[in-house]
């Protein structure tokens, strides 16, 4: 496969010399097109494969923000509602009156910031299994290597991005 493409490229670069100008123009435009496709694919893969920021647990808390990122409470509230993102409402009652049917599998998050510190909240969002190995709660920033039979679309990815985790933590800190 690789050799074939090499030969193909060599032919492309040699032939235009002996060819009609309109021909070389065609080939040139084709090459430009290919280069664009290649560049676009590079950009999209770099968007999807976010680097994993390692974190440290101390006394059942992660005190440092993931990757030193700064959260935004307004965005965090949206992540908490979004059924394909945090979807916290599936299991927790929250002060989000416009959304009906809050779950009650986990504890209520109303006033959670009066009970837990920022670092404790961050650990619970990142990987609750560090505290309770039998928990039902997904680890939203658990390392993907711990997962079994993940479908192709989500292979090697964390549930939320580091930025989204920080947004949620910042939002949770407003629940006093």
């Amino acid at each position: 496969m690789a050799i074939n493409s090499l030969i193909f490229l060599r032919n492309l670069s040699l032939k235009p010399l002996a060819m009609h100008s309109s021909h070389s123009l065609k080939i040139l435009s084709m090459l430009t097109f290919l280069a664009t496709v290649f560049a676009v694919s590079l950009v999209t893969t770099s968007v999807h494969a976010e680097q994993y920021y390692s974190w440290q647990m101390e006394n059942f808390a992660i005190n440092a923000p993931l990757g030193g990122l700064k959260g935004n409470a307004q965005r965090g509230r949206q992540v908490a509602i979004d059924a394909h993102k945090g979807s916290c409402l599936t299991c927790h009652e929250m002060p989000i009156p416009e959304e009906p049917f809050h779950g009650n599998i986990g504890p209520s998050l109303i006033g959670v910031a009066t009970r837990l510190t920022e670092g404790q909240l961050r650990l619970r969002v990142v990987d609750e299994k560090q505290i309770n190995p039998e928990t039902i709660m997904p680890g939203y920033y658990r390392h993907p290597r711990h997962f079994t039979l993940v479908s192709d679309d989500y292979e090697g990815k964390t549930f939320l991005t580091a930025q989204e985790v920080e947004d949620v933590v910042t939002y949770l800190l407003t629940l006093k």
Partner: protein
Amino acid sequence: MLKTFVKLVYLILASSWMLSVAYAQSPRSGYEFLTESTREMQDDEFANPGMVEVEKGRKLFNTPGDNDKTCATCHGENGEKLNPKKIAQYPVYNEEFGVPFTLQKQINLCWEDQLDNVPFIDDCVEVVALETFVRHKAKGETVNVDISGPLKPYYEAGKELYNTRFGQLDMACKHCHDYNAGKKLRGQVLSQGHSNGFPEYRLGTGRITSLQRRLRECFVSFRATPFDFGAEEWINLEVYLHARGNGLKIETPAVRY
């Protein structure tokens, strides 16, 4: 006097606690977790959308195969010669093949061997319709899967899968259906996840759903890759789930959210 009284109080407390534990652990059908209107829909055979599937199954049951025989040739036009007690024992261990046979697999074997037909693809619409028709024959019968014999290792394998976390959500069946039954997942109430109503009509998807299909749906919502159609993992899970619901009454076709 006081001592006997205290002993009596302890005895009452202990026995009530044991009773409550027994109640919590005894299998409860998903029916008990339904709203009143959904129960009514299931109970009324004219309102129950799953009955459409029973009728489709009945039609196939009376459709001649390549050798002009039909299922009805042996089992009667309405399947009246089928033994409901035997239906309630599925999945069973098939000595000849040396593997567990789900009801669907047995139906498919008959379809191929007795009617000379090309067998159905695992879990396709037709074979699920036939399964619904046949299992409906055992409605009200008590689920009775024998795991004391050769099914035991398959039961254990299914139990292990039931307790294994899968997908990006990293959850096992037990996390919803053993630990959190009765609690609310958004607007839904989690059931104990029993199999006595399958194949069942799901209001959420608006279609008849075999047990295997339901398991695939769960896998997709876990963001996990489901096993292949008819894979042994599904069979093991079916053995475990049916045996786990031993003692419940068959409700096919049940109506669930």
